[in-house]
């Protein structure tokens, strides 16, 4: 293998595959990146067995070949190179990376050990505007659980329908639903539970301007997202996602309307004192109260539109802030009925985002 690449090209590709590189040393080969020449390009692949990423970068190939080297070391060497161009050459089990004045010899890893995952072919979504999808993932992933003991809750449920794509997540204290209604072409309907962390990484490597596809494999164990620039495959989480519709309150009878930014700021300040915030909702005003035996007390008042009977309800400050700040509109509706019943947060105009938040019993 012998080729010449531009430093910026290969560095971009190396960054793209980094999320599938495993840092754990159980299988050393997983810390490697596989490099292979293919039709005048250099193809890079990585996998941690849960996810795998492929991308390619333009190269002028003199001699075909393939090898696996440690991803972290190659990335660090490349990043610190001063030259614009790099020559990469494989001789025996050494990969020589050369700039004008620098020369590094990296020992390769046994290429046969590099796991090859099966092809994923069945199209689910033919095209999807990456920008709106990534936005949805970023919002919904906040409500996903980090508790590995309940694997399904660490995932995001992706419901693909002809008219809408729904993303749902819950950590059992709150539940976020985001509905994408346009900018996609669906081939096949289906529901998939995908690791939230993997989708966040996907959102990081996609260019907002591009369109991505989604495919699944025949056995239904993995899905692949990709575009011309890359492909990223993820193993689905097995199990049943809770039937989330039952948690979403149907009516908005007792909703209070409030200016989003103003409330977010009030919540942020109040949460300095305590993580448990009490919302005192009265006609025309919401008061955010935080009390702590050790620290003290804080009160923040925000003007609101409300004509129901006064109610006091307590929430975790982070859950509340996540919910309100995720609303993509200027004005927010918060529906609360009873101190121990779930609250609902959504935008005033659109129905694309719904956030159920469970109160704290005080």
């Amino acid at each position, binding site marked *: 293998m012998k080729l010449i690449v531009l430093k910026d090209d290969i560095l971009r590709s190396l960054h793209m595959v980094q999320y599938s590189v495993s840092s754990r040393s159980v299988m050393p080969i997983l810390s490697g990146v596989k490099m292979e020449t293919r039709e005048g390009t250099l193809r890079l692949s990585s996998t941690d067995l849960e996810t795998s990423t492929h991308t390619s970068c333009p190269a002028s190939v003199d001699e075909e070949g393939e090898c696996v080297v440690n991803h972290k070391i190659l990335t660090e060497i490349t990043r610190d190179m001063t030259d614009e161009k790099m020559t990469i050459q494989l001789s025996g089990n050494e990969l020589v990376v050369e700039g004008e004045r620098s020369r590094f010899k990296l020992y390769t890893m046994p290429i046969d050990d590099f796991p090859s995952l099966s092809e994923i072919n069945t199209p689910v979504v033919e095209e999807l505007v990456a920008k709106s999808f990534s936005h949805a993932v970023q919002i919904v992933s906040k409500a996903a659980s980090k508790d590995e003991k309940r694997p399904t809750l660490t995932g995001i449920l992706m419901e693909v329908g002809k008219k809408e794509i729904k993303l749902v997540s819950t950590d059992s204290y709150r539940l976020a639903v985001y509905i994408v209604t346009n900018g996609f072409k669906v081939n096949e309907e289906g529901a998939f539970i995908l690791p939230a962390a993997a989708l966040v990484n996907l959102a990081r490597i996609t260019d907002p301007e591009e369109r991505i596809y989604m495919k699944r494999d025949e056995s239904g164990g993995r899905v692949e997202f990709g575009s011309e620039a890359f492909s990223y495959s993820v193993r689905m989480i097995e199990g049943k996602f809770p039937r989330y519709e039952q948690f979403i309150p149907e009516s908005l009878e007792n909703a209070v309307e409030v200016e989003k930014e103003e409330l977010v700021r009030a919540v942020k300040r109040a949460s300095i004192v305590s993580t448990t915030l009490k919302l005192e909702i009265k006609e025309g005003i919401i008061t955010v109260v935080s009390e702590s035996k050790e620290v003290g007390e804080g009160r923040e008042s925000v003007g609101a539109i409300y004509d129901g009977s006064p109610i006091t309800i307590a929430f975790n400050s982070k859950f509340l802030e996540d919910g309100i700040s995720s609303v993509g509109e200027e004005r927010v509706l918060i529906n609360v009925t009873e101190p121990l019943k779930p609250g609902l947060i959504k935008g005033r105009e659109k129905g694309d985002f719904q956030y159920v938040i*469970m109160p*704290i*019993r005080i």
Partner: protein
Amino acid sequence: MTQYVAHGLLRAAHQGRTAERGRCVLHLDMDAYFASVEQRDVPLYRGRPLVVCHTSSDFCRHGVVATASYEARRWGIKAGMSVWEARSRCPHACFVHADIPKYLHNTRLLRRLCERLSPRVEVFSVDELFVDLTPLLRRCRPEERRWEEALRLGRDLKEEIRRKLGLTASVGIGPNKLVAKMASEFQKPDGLTLIIPEQLPGILAPLPVDRLVGVGERMRRHLRAMGVETVGDLARAPREVMEWKFGLVGRLLWEAAHGRDESPVVPGEEEQEVKSFGHSLSLRGGTRDLEYLENTLLGLCDAVTRRMRRQGYLGRTVSLRLRVGYAMGYARSRTLPEYADLTSPVYAAARDLLRREASSGLWTEPVTTVGVSVSQLRRREEGRQITIWECLDSREERLTAVLDALRDRYGEGVVTRASLLGDFALSGMNLAR
């Protein structure tokens, strides 16, 4: 208990040193405490050998002796002895369960009595208290009068305890906690001993070295190897050698041998922080019947969570305790996803653990004891994050609230599960509170 107490004292001696001069400390040691309380409350036990046991068996078959009454001590029964041995020494003794909450309550009363004397009262263990008399005696002149006054206070306190609580205590008075504690041990029961600093060398020197707090069997052997048999020998040993050989403990022991102790009397908290709630039940003869065990476990979980709710605690770690045969006891635990105080999440976890153990092949003999405890607690008023699952079905919570209200009003036995009407109800565990 002694060993633990001893190290506690040594450690405390090191931590909070006080340079106060002319101190006077009173040590109060209740005589055969648990047994005396029982004898006071139950006339039948008076004048008879009575053995209070730490045991989980209804008939005090196993477990250890917590306290033996003085009558029982004549038969050679001591605290820490196995119940089985105590029985063989004195088959006609009365054997009773230790009712720890009762004794703790009694200790609180005792503490209040002492606090009338001086605000500086340290509850050292369930049956021992230190009272700092220094501020009371400051105005006494001349010096000798101080000790007389201290003796009078000690006598009055004993009388007060006899009158108000119907119990006897041994009182020791000395210039510090260490000496006061030694003094109270000189005369038992119902003793009153004063050791003044001038008498110290004479009294201490001939004592065998293991009379010092902190010298147990092992330390005694080590010291004997150095030729130290009495407290006097220890006091004469160079301090550096003791320090070099035993470190901090060595130095503190050396100082103790001189009757020196600067640890202050620390007024403690009213109550110790609760760490866990648990109940266990011995199964007579043992059983391998999983269904029976699960049912017993359900009853225990009911009892434990009921107590947690009464005291306003939520817990997160569920431990299952098992004894297989009469020798092998062990515990398994699991952390719940949420803090809980209802039966079903606690029981579900405990039952899972039980089922796993049942299939583990460890049960070569029948299970003789099953218990459950909940730890990793937090106070209910700190607030509890509700989960979305709960809003689907709050029936258990509402039902439990009603049952709790019933029990609060009409007693624990007013309502019980039908499945627990058999042996479990007979054990009386459903009435635990």
